[in-house]
């Protein structure tokens, strides 16, 4: 009954992994260890694919591990397993918020949470920026700090920033496609 087990393992992951897709990683490593469905090095490969394909990383990981363990039906079970806790928890919270929207406590809490949420997104954005715009492995000290700057990436970033200001009507997907083309054409990963 690997299908039920897959559902159950991913249900637990969905219920206890707080903070998004990467938070599911430790759960996946331990799942592979105690079930023998996949190895730790397979998890690393699956993460690389999940990060370089569209869709939420946690969802991609669930589909991939489900497929590796038990084929198409396995990936359906893993997928349904990981999203079910989210749907239940969020529906309960959304219903509670609807009922208590006008409470001064709820309003006060969100007055404080909103800037914190934006702050958390900023911090996550900075981490993404460091990976995308810097070559941290080239760091040789402050006296030559510019060696870490990835000029090709910075030029593209500046062009995209200007582009999003000039052409506000363009869908973000257009810029994402453009980024893929420029990256492939100018060997952005050095590969």
């Amino acid at each position, binding site marked *: 009954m690997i299908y039920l087990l897959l559902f159950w393992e991913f249900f637990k992951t*969905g219920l*206890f992994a*707080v*903070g*998004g*897709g990467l938070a599911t990683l430790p759960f996946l490593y331990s799942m592979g260890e105690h079930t023998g469905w996949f190895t730790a090095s397979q998890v690393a*490969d699956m993460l*690389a694919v999940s*990060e*370089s*394909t*569209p*869709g*939420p*990383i*946690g969802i*991609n990981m669930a589909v*991939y591990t489900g*497929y*590796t363990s038990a084929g198409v039906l396995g990936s*359906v079970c893993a*997928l349904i397993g990981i999203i079910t*806790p989210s*749907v239940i*928890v*969020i*529906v309960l919270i*959304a219903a509670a918020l609807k009922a208590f929207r006008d409470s*001064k406590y709820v309003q*006060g*809490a*969100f*007055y*404080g*949470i*909103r*800037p*914190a*949420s*934006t*702050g*958390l997104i*900023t*911090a996550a*954005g900075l981490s*993404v920026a460091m990976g*995308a715009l810097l070559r941290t492995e080239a760091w040789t000290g402050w006296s030559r700090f510019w060696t870490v700057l990835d000029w090709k*990436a910075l030029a*593209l970033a500046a062009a*995209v*920033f200007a582009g999003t200001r000039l052409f506000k009507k363009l869908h*973000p997907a257009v*810029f*994402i496609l453009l*980024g893929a083309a420029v*990256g*492939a054409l*100018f*060997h*952005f990963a050095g590969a």
Partner: protein
Amino acid sequence: MKIYWELFVSFFRMGAITFGGGYAMLPILQREVVQDRGWCTDQELTDYFAIGQCTPGIIAVNTATFIGYKLRGVPGAVVATLSLVLPSFIIIGVIAAVLQNFAEYPLVQNAFAGIRVVVTVLILNAVIKLLRSSVVDKPTAAIYVATAVLAFALDVSPVLFVVVTAALGIALHIRKEAGKK
């Protein structure tokens, strides 16, 4: 029925063009859900993200559930969530079946490095928009700066930030209300 179809089209498209998880989806959500469809405001989106980060599960899924629920209750939540994950199911299924070493192709690595640069800029734009609806006075500006710096510098769970700032927000809000009287 039309709204369910619109939910499906919108969330399916978002699932197919988001590279890099929940944060990368934010600029696309702002475009599709706030700007084009008017299903929620920037401020509501910030609230959903805050809750999505401190509740279990994947942030993008939590946000989709929130928006679907707001529009059409539980059926709306289910439709939005399933539509969001359907592209992953198809794409990953194909890769797992025939392209096991997909991530090792130089073309994929180079294209993805380019996409990451674009996503960085899109997140920056999203943050600028969110700042307008979340930083409204001096206390909220202080909370924003403190959270951004601490969350970047320390490896702490987002739950902690949300719980502390919620308590702080309640205290500040009640003091402000008392001051008005």
